[in-house]
């Protein structure tokens, strides 16, 4: 019996790399939204605009969006009433690389920049409630849009730095993000279910804390749980983490404001 015919060899040569690719793809984690780890009651709360407490933050952002700054213009002057002139595909691609600043710009960073340069202030603190409200309103415009962060080219080193932080142990608890959110997603931690730590629902509403939060605030919450020293809201570390975390969720749909534990 002649098993190794030329065509068979050809077939093997063709399937071998395919098998390798399939295996490595199976090993990598498929992104799953935090929504899927919620109780049915919490899921219902999220999708009901009147029941979702995060909508209060979105609504506050909508008012700020058309509030005039020092030079008499508002966000709405350029971006249209209710932000209708904004490109929702672009909103879904943040953080993006700014060739001007030569660093990644988060959605909140971009809003604060506009606030300073286009409408002449008043300047908002990065960690202020107003900054969070504006971010929530703008991100909400892209509800249902697919997260699509480009981490090629100049973004690559920031993605790698964020990935490194995601895999760094912190605090007295001495564990890294991935140890809970990759290895143990779906398991129960006291009364909560651990999610993959995806950011597609942020800015969102933390049910357990009873407040609206975005990615930097949520990471600070995690670091506090780990008994670690948090970073500043606009720190390089948080920006890099947001680059990595958003890109890690590429393909998920934006859910702002997502309800999370």
């Amino acid at each position: 019996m002649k098993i190794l015919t030329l065509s068979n060899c050809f077939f093997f040569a063709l399937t071998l790399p395919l098998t390798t690719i399939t295996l490595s793809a199976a090993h990598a984690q498929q992104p799953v939204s935090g929504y899927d780890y919620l109780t049915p009651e919490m899921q219902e709360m999220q999708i009901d605009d009147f029941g979702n407490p995060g909508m209060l933050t979105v609504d506050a952002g909508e008012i700020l969006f058309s509030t005039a700054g020092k030079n008499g213009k508002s966000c709405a002057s350029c971006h249209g009433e209710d932000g209708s002139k904004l490109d929702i595909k672009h909103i879904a691609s943040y953080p993006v690389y700014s060739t001007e600043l030569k660093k990644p710009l988060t959605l909140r960073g971009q809003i604060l920049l506009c606030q300073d340069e286009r409408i002449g202030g008043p300047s908002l603190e990065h960690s202020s409630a107003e900054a969070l409200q504006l971010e929530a309103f703008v991100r909400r415009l892209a509800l249902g849009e697919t997260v699509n962060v480009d981490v090629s080219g100049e973004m690559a080193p920031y993605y790698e730095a964020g990935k490194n932080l995601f895999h760094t142990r912190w605090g007295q608890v001495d564990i890294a993000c991935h140890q809970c959110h990759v290895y143990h997603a779906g398991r129960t931690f006291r009364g909560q279910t651990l999610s993959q730590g995806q950011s597609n629902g942020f800015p969102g509403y933390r049910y357990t804390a009873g407040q609206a939060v975005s990615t930097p605030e949520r990471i600070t919450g995690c670091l506090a749980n780990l008994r670690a020293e948090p970073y500043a809201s606009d720190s390089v570390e948080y920006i890099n983490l947001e680059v990595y975390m958003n890109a890690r969720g590429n393909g998920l749909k934006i859910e702002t404001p997502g309800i999370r534990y």
Partner: protein
Amino acid sequence: MQKTRLFRLPLLFAASLIIPTTYATDASSPVQPYYEWKVENYEIKQPLGGLEGNAVRGKAIAGNQSRGNCLACHLLPIPEEPFFGNLGPPLTGIGSRQSTGMIRLHVVDQSRFNPETVMPGYYRTPAQLNRVAKALKGKTWLNAQEIEDVVAYLTSLK
């Protein structure tokens, strides 16, 4: 991960030069000296500082959310508690499955069994930790007496 580990090496070296004897413990624990411990065949045979544990106190620490919080991840025979996690294995009957010395090492520093564990090292050498909250710097999560109390409680679960 490799990088993080390597990053700790100078810290470990520094720690070996200055023998840490004055570590305070967690803010809410009474201050006690840090006692060195030794691992032999996956056991810490000697009680920390030669202290004697109390199982009743240990049960209270294990169930307390701001102290041991063992039930955040483990099932324990404490029926009055409504929630238990399942990140770790159930601990019911652990005292008949493992020696006291082995239980002590699990509580002190679980990473000696599994380097990728998510279980906090309740008495892990503080100098090995990265970016600990300022108020907790140089402290262990539980103090030596509390460790011995928890060990006494777990050992009693036959």
